[in-house]
């Protein structure tokens, strides 16, 4: 029943070209899940996300050193090879330096008619950055208006937001089922759902999802009594990995915290704002309501930590010296998904995860520096984890051995929700 969607993922370029002809709409490529697609959609374009492909990023060698991540290098490679020639524009949100260089290079050498980088604030909870982001989005909206030659009024935005929120809730409904002892969709199917969503017109995607979800409800559960895994870390756009985990080996991926799947569809646009100022609503959604990525920081997260149910090691519990009250100016709103560690721990527990696979895209700094804490905090609540170093080309033999061994060492977990507070991190993982 996922054939249609899988085809979109595997044949993304042709699909986009056909889409362009069929809908007679422009196609805008984007590089990062922080790009507010709603605005692009409201301008009458179809945003499609650009992914890496399983080829050596040889053309990228001209502009990107070998120590930039293959995910970004491969996107540049495809752009230079002309695979993205159907794009009417390229948009990215500033998140990591790898993507930034890929974008800059495409902007200068990629021959794509329009390109724009939106600066997404690195701090997500400060009202000041919301204000800045709001203004930045206003400018972006104007650029999109100039590009499409038609003005975007609030109702256009509301319409777009409606489509996207519907998509989010549809996918979420399907994903809810993954908490069951015997989920009725596999991890691969989950990824197919979200990836295809990023690669096609959201409205059409919604229609497909409606029929699919019906079929899923009266479908027998997948893979009884196998290990329940979670994937966290660098973006995953290569389904081969899931084939290894779920077909070659006996396990099922029941949830994840990656920007190509769950993180992308979590976080609905706050209703109240939509009615008054939809753009404000978009700001709220992208800064606060969605789970953050490692390049985004919560300025006063130490407040968070003191109220965190799993006081995982070395989160910023105020140490005795700083017990004195924070100045007002430093106390911002206190939204619940502001801490990504807390968020993924919660996901793991909700889905009865037995083991975690931490994906480390080679040369990905943001995730690289987080790995230690991610692994540590999962250990603290009693879930073992393994780090897989991945590349745009999955080397089957290597990965299979590691994952299989990991599965063989898994034991039934009993979660530790309130681990005792330790000072500093322990060294060995």
């Amino acid at each position, binding site marked *: 029943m996922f054939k249609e969607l899988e085809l979109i993922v595997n044949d993304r370029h042709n699909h986009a070209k056909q889409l362009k002809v069929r809908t007679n709409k422009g196609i805008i490529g984007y590089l990062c899940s922080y790009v507010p697609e709603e605005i692009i959609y409201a301008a009458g374009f179809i945003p499609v996300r650009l992914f890496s492909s*399983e*080829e*050596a990023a*040889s*053309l990228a*060698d*001209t502009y990107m050193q070998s120590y930039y991540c293959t995910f970004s290098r491969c996107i540049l490679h495809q752009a230079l090879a002309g695979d993205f020639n159907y794009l009417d524009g390229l948009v990215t949100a500033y998140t990591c330096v790898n993507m930034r260089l890929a974008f800059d290079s495409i902007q200068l050498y990629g021959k794509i008619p329009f390109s724009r980088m939106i600066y997404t604030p690195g701090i997500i909870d400060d009202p000041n950055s919301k204000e800045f982001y709001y203004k930045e989005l206003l400018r972006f909206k104007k650029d999109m208006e100039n590009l499409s030659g038609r003005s975007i009024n609030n109702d256009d935005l509301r319409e777009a937001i409606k489509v996207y929120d519907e998509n989010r809730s549809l996918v979420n409904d399907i994903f809810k089922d993954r908490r069951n002892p015997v989920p009725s969709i596999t991890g691969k199917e989950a990824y197919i759902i979200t990836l295809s969503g990023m690669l096609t017109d959201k409205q059409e995607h919604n229609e497909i999802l409606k029929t699919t979800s019906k079929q899923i409800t009266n479908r027998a559960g997948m893979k009884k009594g196998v290990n329940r895994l979670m994937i966290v870390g660098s973006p995953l756009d290569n389904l081969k990995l899931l084939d290894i985990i779920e077909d070659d080996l006996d396990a099922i991926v029941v949830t994840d915290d990656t920007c190509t799947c769950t993180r992308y569809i979590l976080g609905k646009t706050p209703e109240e704002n939509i009615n008054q100022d939809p753009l404000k609503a978009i700001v709220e959604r992208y800064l606060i309501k969605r789970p953050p990525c490692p390049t985004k920081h919560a300025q006063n997260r130490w407040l968070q930590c003191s109220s965190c149910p799993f006081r995982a090691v070395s989160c910023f519990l105020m140490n005795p010296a700083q017990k004195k009250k924070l100045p007002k100016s430093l106390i911002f709103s206190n939204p619940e998904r502001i801490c990504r560690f807390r968020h993924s721990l919660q996901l793991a527990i909700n889905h009865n995860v037995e083991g975690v696979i931490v994906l480390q895209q080679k040369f990905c700094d943001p995730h690289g520096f987080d790995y230690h804490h991610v692994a540590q905090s999962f250990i603290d609540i009693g879930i073992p984890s393994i780090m897989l170093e991945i*590349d745009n*080309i999955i*080397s*089957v*033999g*290597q990965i299979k051995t590691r994952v299989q061994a990991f599965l063989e060492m898994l034991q039934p977990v009993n979660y530790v929700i309130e681990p005792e507070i330790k000072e500093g991190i322990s060294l060995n993982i």
Partner: protein
Amino acid sequence: MRVAGVDVGCLTAKAVIVDGNDILASTVILVENTTEIEADRVLCMTLKKAGLTRDCLSFVVSTGAVPATWAGSDFYLSEVSCAANGALYYYPLTRTIIDMGAENCFCSKCDGDGIVLDYIANQKCASGTGLFLDLISGVLEVKIEDIGKLSLDSKKYLKMNLTCAVFAESEVVSLIHQGEKKEDIINSLHMSIASRVVAMLKAIKFKEEVIFIGGVAKNIGMAKALSSEIGSQVKIPSNPEAVIALGAALEARALA
């Protein structure tokens, strides 16, 4: 007026003696001793071949791994420039050169006067070199001289990640265990090496004609892969190993 060029690599040493425009003699020997000694040895052998003695030579240019301290040479010129000279001798229209030696692989762009306009070489990574193919042929239990011919019967192209030779080796091993055919594996190796090389070529914005030299140039499979990746036939001079030594000799002719 007779001059000579001497080139010592990490596996073989080569020497060429030219007189005006004709090559009197050229030799290629396997390196067994220190670079200096080998340089002397290969030069003597070549002299013998040509029926000459050392004092018949009015100028000697050394290149490659030959140290500047080698008493035998009057001048040192890097292999990149020598390659340009040598290639131009065979093909006056040479504009781009691919050299695949035992350990080094470089692409260079030159003009009609043999001046290197641009070049790019493998710094850390040994993949796409002779040693690398040696290693793989060992894993595949195929003689190195046969892999070229063998790869020609392959129709299949398997995706491979060639970030480093050793990585590739384990890649090949797992391919073997997946039951892939030897010829397909070799062919895929050639193709992926070729695509890496072509990336280097693109990086220096290469022009026609492309000349393929160095020990690996004797591997027809590699040549075929390169031609198909580039989209035009690469030219391979007779005795491609000695081209750099020849280039040195020609430099000597110019300087003498």
